[in-house]
């Protein structure tokens, strides 16, 4: 009994450590700047009406606008008219903090565009990775050819190479062929995933040889076996790999930062987060955290949906 309690205590502690940043992120995305500064308001904040100072500043009328508005305020001085306009602006610009944070996230930066970019890049990467990894893994697991073990050794060796070590040469190569600032630059370097090859190969090892022989007897070519037999049986492992691949590339900041230098049109979501960094008034944590929340949400939803099969894949439970 006591051992169980200890086990749970330790697990709860671990869970708190892991969840704390998410808690902060979510909480900040709800609160007003003042509450964030003072650290008040609990998890949701008080949600009192707040005034967006920037919005008000934008409405500050210049001389022409005061002159244009003069007929509406007969017999008032310019400064009185200005004060009236500003008072109206403050009313118009006051919102609930949560609305403020989340609308800012979409208005301040073209977040939808970034999300779309993220989708295009991660989906293309994953798609091509599967296209390459499955036949490679099949060959390494099930075909007999000279030098197979050596090739597999190379795959294992490639697992040890950190991406940062080859980032510079890769960048130079892409720059030389003029591909920086394109989707190609974001996608191509990741299309061969040695981890994917390794993971799928380990899974394919558990697929009985008889099944492949049966497929050959039934008239399938080797490629047909990969797509019609191995792929459907490997769905759990593929899902596990999908989570690894998609999380890694959706969240990647390092590589897009290197190859996307000019146009904001190619920004992926993590690059979009930078829009809120080091703002002059320094009080943009709320919208920033709202953006972060929006960015991680697709991943969390995807994980929850695929959770059970994902765990199956991780444990590489083969079939009987």
């Amino acid at each position, binding site marked *: 009994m006591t051992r169980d309690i200890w086990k749970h205590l330790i697990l709860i502690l671990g869970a708190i450590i892991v969840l704390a940043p998410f808690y902060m992120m979510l909480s900040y995305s709800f609160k007003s700047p003042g509450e964030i500064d003072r650290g008040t308001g609990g998890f949701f904040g008080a949600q009192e009406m707040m005034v967006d100072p920037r919005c008000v500043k934008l409405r500050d009328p210049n001389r022409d606008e005061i002159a244009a508005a003069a007929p509406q305020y007969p017999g008032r001085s310019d400064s009185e008219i200005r004060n009236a306009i500003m008072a109206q602006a403050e009313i118009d610009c006051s919102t609930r903090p949560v609305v403020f944070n989340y609308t800012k996230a979409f208005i301040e930066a073209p977040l939808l565009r970034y999300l779309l970019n993220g989708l295009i890049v991660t989906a293309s990467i994953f798609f091509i990775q599967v296209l390459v990894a499955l036949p490679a893994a099949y060959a390494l697991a099930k075909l007999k050819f000279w030098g197979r073990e050596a090739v597999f050794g190379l795959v294992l060796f490639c697992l040890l190479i950190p991406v940062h070590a080859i980032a510079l040469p890769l960048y130079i190569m892409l720059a030389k062929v003029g591909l920086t600032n394109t989707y190609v630059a974001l996608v191509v370097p990741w299309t061969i995933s040695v981890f994917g090859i390794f993971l799928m190969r380990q899974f394919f090892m558990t697929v*009985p040889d*008889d*099944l492949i*022989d*049966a*497929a*050959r*007897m*039934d*008239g*399938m070519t080797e490629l*047909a076996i990969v797509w019609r*037999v191995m792929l*459907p*049986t490997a*769905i759990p492992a593929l899902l596990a790999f999908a989570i690894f691949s998609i999380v890694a590339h959706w969240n990647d900041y390092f590589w897009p930062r290197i190859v996307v230098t000019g146009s904001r049109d190619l920004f992926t979501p993590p690059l979009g987060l930078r829009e809120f960094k080091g703002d002059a008034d320094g009080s943009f944590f709320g919208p920033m955290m709202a953006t972060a929340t929006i960015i991680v949400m697709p991943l969390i939803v995807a994980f929850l949906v695929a959770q059970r099969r994902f765990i199956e894949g991780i444990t590489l439970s083969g*079939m009987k």
Partner: protein
Amino acid sequence: MAGLSISSVTKRFGETEVLKGVTLDVADAEFVSLVGPSGCGKSTLLRIIAGLEDPTSGDIAIDGKAVTGTRAADRNLSMVFQSYALYPHLTVAENIAVPLRMRSLSAVQRLPLIGPFLPGAKEQRSEIATAVQSATEMLEIGPLLDRKPGQLSGGQRQRVALGRALVRDPAAFLLDEPLSNLDAKLRVQTRAEIAQLHRRLKATFIYVTHDQVEAMTMSDRIAVMMGGEILQCDAPSVIYEDPSNIRVAEFIGSPKINILPVELANTEMTLFGRVLGYITEAAQAGIYQLGLRPEALKLTQAAPVVTGTVAHMENLGSEVYAQIALANQTSRVTLRAAPAERRNLRLGAEVGLGFSLKDGLIFDADGKRQRRVEVAVTHEREVA
């Protein structure tokens, strides 16, 4: 339907020679069992016939046409695997349809979504459905068509595997220990069903098993394999009654055949120093081995050839097997007795055994059958 011919096929895996020159001709519509102990190369031979493995040397011909170098799918053979090897993600009906879909639909027609609407696909698909239907009726698996293999029992999976094999009307069926994953009762039942299927389809069957009972009960001919060679290929009764090799005699028959050392000198054949008979034809003097099936031994009080004590008994109801430890010898022999004789057999009881030499099989020291050694039976007049 077609005959098969295998000529001097050898196979090496690295240094080990798994098949050492196998030659076998299988006639059209014949049921041939390949039987032998585990690891003797049965599966390897079957895979070579199927085209899943290339022989190191030798040739395979199907229906008179050499198929060396022909891809497995193009040999039009069906194989049933020990593990059934059903596609786990397809339903029973889809599993059975796979070989037909691969053969009669083009790659484009097989595509999901658009495939069914292409010209010609509709007729092809309905033909396939009809073929699947008739196969499932034959095997009585109609109600299972929409299940996945994971939801089936072992026996049902086995039937689906058979269905997938027979739906495409192959030149020959190759079965690799198809019953070994079933429980004993189901095995007996399925054994009979496969034999019936063979008679009904009039197809060529090559059936691999390590179980001699399966081989004996189902086959037209049995090929006994050991150590990568076929020792003998004959009808079951011939294999049992007239084996050409002591290893065949020892492998086939349960309980095992009794082997006793006999000596041949000066036309006299002696067992443990006792004269059994006289040879009628000149044969080389020396040590021979006498094989006696358990049913060849008889309990006898008058003038037994050997005596011994009952060391162990197995009563199967319809018959009794007794192991007799021979007096003054280390060896034991097994005797089959009728239930009526059971009262003479008690553990530890002294019994006398006799036999007719005509029932004995004589092998030379190397295990080769010596058919030329004809013995004049004389043992009834003997010194006690």
